[in-house]
């Protein structure tokens, strides 16, 4: 127990140390971008992500990188900062296919580049859906735009304009403020070079830099336009990155659950609980912060739903554990949560974590909460059923006869999870109908998103009824828990990313099809394999 106690103290102090994080004034400078007032830190992260694919560059913070883009764009010519992933695009631009990032010049000065952009414009004018190739071209165009506009100072809008809704960019600042901004950049250069060289006066120089930013802020009046606490909270959210820590804690919990499961040690389970509880606290904290920052329940895009489903799976696993006293549930829940949060963090281009303004139709917290939260929480229960089903298949492959109790418990857990899922998705669909009736004027219109939610519901209802007639027994239940989740994946991801049709256009995105298809295929193969193993065994006995 001593170890666990120490662990709690350690985790807590780690958390506190992050709370005490000292913000750089530059990071919390309010800027207007993409319909939001956000701290410079968020802006810098988003732009660096677009160009480079990460929110840090060789250990340097995004805000530092973006500032140097503005001050000395020519110094960046020799750096490989432009991420290009599409192989066709690489080929046409004569770029090495095994390299991920490139210098700007070989791309944008390549003789084929204007032709590619013309091709993209032609495709856009035809109003046809952009294929992955054209999406890659679009990203390239965007990368070029972002880099040149930041370098020219036109993209960074820092001064509120009383005459207009649009803020004034650095390039268009009146002369008085130009010189104040110059002070900011000077302060930044002095501070950063002192830091790099490890000079003794680096603390004073850093304070100078902060002071220059403060002077600029109050002079242009942007400190009046927005609450500085909100800016600080957002930078804290960026810097602390609670979901990342939660992913780590879930991962550790998963490892200890696995230790406890394989080696049957109780200390493993206890340690796992410490990590699990820390993970849930971090998860809930991150969730609350994001709610506060966006002002709506965070279920408006793919990224947010993935994070929400992770939490839901843990909550359901916890509730079911309380009633069913079955150790597989939390193992399964932790598997789902770890998987979801890792995905959410590692696929920034597909799962965009940045906070974007909402489509007009979604600007209703009431409906968002009751319809979208209910539907997505049912995904969590089905995901849990799938994870538990995976464990069940593992036992079937390992040996059915020796693991009868485990298989029974797992089949029962899958069954309960599916019941919970159905109990949420059915009212969720009905509520969706009510919302659709209320805002689009029809209760049911066979829109692909609603249709696939219905198909998922029908699939699970068929499983529940099949169980009643005896069509589905333990193996059937476990296999359905795994297999029927493909329907949820289609409804959750497929409609937006594969079909790309219908009225739920605000959630559309692109990319990742090969991974998702792989995920589904692996599970289907697992079911088939377990089935074959079972049949072989039945024959031999």
């Amino acid at each position, binding site marked *: 127990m001593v170890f666990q106690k120490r662990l709690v103290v350690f985790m807590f102090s780690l958390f506190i140390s992050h709370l005490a994080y000292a913000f750089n004034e530059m990071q919390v400078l309010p800027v207007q971008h993409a319909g939001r007032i956000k701290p410079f830190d968020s802006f810098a992260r988003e732009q660096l992500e677009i160009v480079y694919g990460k929110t840090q560059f060789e250990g340097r913070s995004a805000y530092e990188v973006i500032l140097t883009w503005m001050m000395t764009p020519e110094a960046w010519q020799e750096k490989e900062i432009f991420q290009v992933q599409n192989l066709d695009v690489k080929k046409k631009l004569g770029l090495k296919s095994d390299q991920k990032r490139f210098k700007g010049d070989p791309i944008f000065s390549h003789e084929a580049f204007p032709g590619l952009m013309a091709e993209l414009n032609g495709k856009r004018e035809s109003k*046809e859906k952009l294929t992955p190739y054209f999406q890659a071209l679009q990203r390239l165009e965007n990368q070029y735009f972002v880099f040149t506009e930041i370098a020219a100072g036109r993209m960074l809008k820092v001064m509120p304009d009383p005459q207009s*809704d649009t803020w004034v960019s650095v390039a268009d600042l009146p002369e008085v403020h130009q010189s104040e901004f110059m002070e900011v950049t000077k302060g930044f250069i002095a501070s950063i070079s002192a830091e790099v060289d490890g000079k003794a006066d680096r603390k004073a120089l850093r304070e100078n830099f902060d002071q220059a930013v403060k002077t600029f802020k109050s002079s242009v009046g942007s400190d009046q336009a927005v609450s500085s606490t909100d800016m600080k909270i957002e930078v804290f959210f960026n810097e602390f990155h609670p979901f990342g820590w939660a992913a780590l804690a879930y991962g550790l919990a998963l490892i200890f659950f696995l230790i406890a499961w394989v080696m049957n040690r109780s200390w493993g389970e206890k340690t796992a609980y410490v990590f699990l509880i820390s993970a849930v606290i971090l998860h809930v904290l991150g969730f609350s912060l994001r709610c506060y920052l966006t002002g709506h329940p965070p279920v408006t895009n793919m990224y947010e739903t993935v994070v929400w489903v992770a939490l839901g799976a843990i909550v359901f696993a916890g509730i079911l554990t309380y009633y069913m006293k079955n150790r597989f549930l939390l193992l399964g829940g932790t598997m789902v949560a770890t998987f979801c949060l890792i995905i959410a963090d590692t696929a920034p281009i597909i799962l965009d974590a940045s906070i974007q303004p909402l489509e007009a*139709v979604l600007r209703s917290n009431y409906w968002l909460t009751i319809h979208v939260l209910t539907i997505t929480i049912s995904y969590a229960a089905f995901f849990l059923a799938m994870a538990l089903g995976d464990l069940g298949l593992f036992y079937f492959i390992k040996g059915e006869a020796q693991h009868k109790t485990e298989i029974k418990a797992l089949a029962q857990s899958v069954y309960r999870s599916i019941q919970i899922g159905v109990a949420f998705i059915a009212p969720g669909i009905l509520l969706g109908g009510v919302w659709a009736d*209320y*805002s689009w004027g029809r209760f049911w219109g*066979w829109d692909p998103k609603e249709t*696939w939610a219905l198909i998922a519901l*029908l699939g699970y209802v068929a499983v529940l009824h099949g169980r*009643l007639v005896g069509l589905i027994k333990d193996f059937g239940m476990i296999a359905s828990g795994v297999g029927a989740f493909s329907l949820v994946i289609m409804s959750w991801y497929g*409609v937006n990313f594969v079909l790309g049709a219908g009225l739920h256009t605000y959630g559309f995105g692109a990319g990742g099809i090969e991974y998702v298809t792989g995920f589904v295929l692996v599970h289907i193969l697992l079911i088939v394999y377990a089935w074959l193993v079972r049949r072989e065994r039945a024959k031999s006995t």
Partner: protein
Amino acid sequence: MPVLKTTQDKTQKSLFRRLIKKMASLKLAVFTICLIGVVSAIGTFVEASLGVQHAQKLVYRSYWMMIVMGIFIINLTSVIIDRWPWEKKHSSFILAHIGIIFIILGQWMTNQYGLDGTMRIAIGSSGQQVVIGDTEVQIYSSFDAQNYTRLYQQNVDFITSPPTLNKPLTFQLEKEAFQFVEYAPFVIPRREIVASELPRDGMAVRFQLINPSIRQAQMIEWLYQRSAHTSDQLELGPLTISMGPLKSAVTDRNQLHFQIQDQKLIVTAYDKNNPEPAQRWKLSEGDSVPLKWMGFELKILRLLPQARETWDLTFKEGPTELTVPAVKILYKDQEQWVLLNDTLKLFSDNAVYIIAYSQKRIDLSFPVQLKNFEMETYKGISKAKEYKSIVSVPDISDHVISMNEPLKYKGLTFYQASFQNDQMGKPVASILSVNYDPGRFLKYLGSTVMSLGIILLFYFKRSSLWSSKKD
């Protein structure tokens, strides 16, 4: 006799019972549920590749979908009857299944008797007609090209039954007949003017106006005369260019008038407010002359004494924002395409026929006036944050329709669906969706009953629900 009757009654009853038992089979239920799922899934793929209309017509509202749903309803009803006499413990199960039946019937009523259309109203004007998804063909005839009478009105559904050369849709006119012979659901049309041999066709001129000193100031236009007797004109900034019989030489604008004589173009220039021609030229293709106004030069690119308008069509596999449906007409061995919501003129020896292929319109019997349309964007970008229409109907004035806030009037519901911008991005019209849904009550009742059933299900099972031993 009475004895005999009872036995007969008994066998009948048991036959009915047995039939119900069969129809109530859970295996049939599982099969039907899966079938509905598969059909719906196919529908979504049809929608992704061919669009909403095709998915609705070919899958969701098709006869075989109705048959599947019919089997499902019979199955659900039989299950409920099969449990007779009902006990208290059956209530959850019965309510849940009755709820589903109500929802399906409600949806069927909506499809059958409901109205689901859209209305585009320009800001400041009013509209009275709702456009729906169904299409129709109307044929008008005239002997003097002035007064038209309607010969035919027929509902057509080219998506489910497209006409072909072998199975055309034929309409009989005075002497000849004409036929619809091909349906193309996705074409991108481009107007094209081509030379014609027919003396009744008007002329067409393609010309260029250039100002050599200003690079941007140049335009290439067609001026096309719809028939040999009409006056047609084009307004280009402060200049009017006209063709055909000259309406009036005196206007408050400068005017160029085109007339074709012996393969040459006679161009007459009139200064504004002056009936006397200022200049006159006789030009051929390729000639250019300087105009007096603002240093512009006129260049004649193409001259067609007789021309007609036609469509240059690009055929696509699937829908985009630019595609429209089109249907091919065969008349006197001539093939012509007519687009949806467009018309085509056919000429016989002594009559003119107008073929109109269009979406059906339903008259509301009262006008809806769009007083204003307001759009609020997110600060600094053009993305819409909120938009609303301020409308007036006979009994209600200045009602605000916004996203999630419809107007209910005379059993109809008006929703804010979308809007249209001009080239500058300024909204010019609001698009409202107009609905009448007679199945709404049944669907809501069904939803409530079904939810009640689910809640009761948990209530009755709560004791055994969480124990894993018994089930």
